């Protein structure tokens, strides 16, 4: 029994190590922050050298980038997209708007904290975050995956009632 645990742990360890080198992101470009993604991906900052490539459908991606303020209308789509993605999946909150509403903190149409509705693994602060900050965010996500701490998707399954309750509160 114990032997099996050791083997399984080693297997998962190796897998995490490989997994962090290949992350496909779904850039759900909800708002202004998305404009920082092209320089991050193209020649100057070259995210592909970490194995991070943009992908277009939720079925194929590992990271959900929520780039900026979230309208109540958009939240519905974001939740759908997140639930369509295949686990293990990670969420990156991008810009101050996802942390506390940013400059839209008193708007009636904007939800303020992303992690009430989805389990966020990494936040990238800034309005808007520079490509350097974005790359740094990716690096910290890779580090978390390596240490086995990027468990947002498990949390979403375990605390599903909590997240659903919060979502219901704003979406009605």
């Amino acid at each position, binding site marked *: 029994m114990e032997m099996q645990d050791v083997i399984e742990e080693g297997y998962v360890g190796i897998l995490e190590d490989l997994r962090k080198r290949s992350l496909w992101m779904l850039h759900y470009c909800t708002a202004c922050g998305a404009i920082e993604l092209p320089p991050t991906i193209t020649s100057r900052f070259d995210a592909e*050298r970490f194995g991070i490539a943009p992908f277009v459908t939720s079925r194929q991606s590992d990271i959900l980038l929520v780039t900026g303020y979230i309208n109540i209308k958009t939240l519905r789509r974001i939740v759908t997209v997140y639930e369509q993605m295949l686990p*293990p999946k990670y969420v990156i909150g991008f810009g101050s708007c996802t942390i506390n509403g940013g400059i839209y903190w008193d708007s009636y149409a904007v939800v303020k904290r992303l992690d009430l509705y989805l389990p966020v693994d990494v936040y990238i602060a800034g309005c808007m975050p520079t490509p350097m900050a974005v790359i740094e965010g990716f690096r910290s996500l890779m580090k978390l995956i390596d240490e086995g701490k990027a468990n947002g998707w498990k949390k979403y399954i375990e605390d599903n009632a909590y997240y659903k309750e919060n979502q219901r509160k704003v979406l009605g």
Partner: protein
Amino acid sequence: MVEKIVLVLTPVLAFFVGIFLVGFKRKMVARIHRRYGPPLHQPLLDIIKLLAKKENISHGVMFDLGPVIALGASILTVLFLPLPGFKLLTPYGDLIAFLYIMVIGSLGMALGAGESGNPNASIGIARALTLMLGYDLPFIIAGNTLILKYGTTSLFNLMNAQSNLHWNLFFLPLTAVAGFIATYGAMGEHPFDVVVAPQEVATGPMVEYGGKHLGMLMIDHAMHVYIETALFVTLFLGGASNIWIFILKQLGVVIVMTLVDTVLPRFRIENAVRYFWRWPTIFALLGLFIVYLGG
């Protein structure tokens, strides 16, 4: 005995060579963009990651079988290709059989993608089959030119007939150009990448595939790259005396293709078919005519 072992191991070899070619291509594209680019083994990492996904979403039996049929067709196609010094599977008519089997993969994908019910998938697969109509015409004419010239349909004999620099590239340049453009279209490079066009149809037939399905499709893609380049090397670049030269020639084909691929935008589907039915077909017909006159 050796023949049988080689036969069994060929798909594995094809997979790894294909992975290497795909990785090389990604690196090269990055360098042309003046980027550093992903490591050479990046496609392998992608495949491992996809195969290690926790869940899989299925839309039905045919949806699951689609990638299996595609991969199975690729493995079968690999077995028909001659390796340097080895004649795999079937004694007669393998060029013709080859051309037929290569289609099965696309049909499998069509059935699988069709069941997913996603409109992007249907559009993608319609484009794939239409494009096939385009590049198959010049390719079949080019293949028939070779059959006419050498009087054989065996890929192994065609390969051997070109030893000592008697490459078809030098002696039948028009046919070779037609064959190259057709192969290029079959690989789905720019400007013929209408099928997967991420900006228009969100990777087309693959749109609903994720996780292990997509992993299998990526394995299939790697083998497909091997098949297309190997076929071109066998038919026009004189094959090779050992496996390393063979891979080197495949790499050459990939390099030339990537150089073109990186700088071109995308055709619309009707333009792509029109292009195939015009230039490569004219070249192929001229080549056929020359061979016919020359005896």
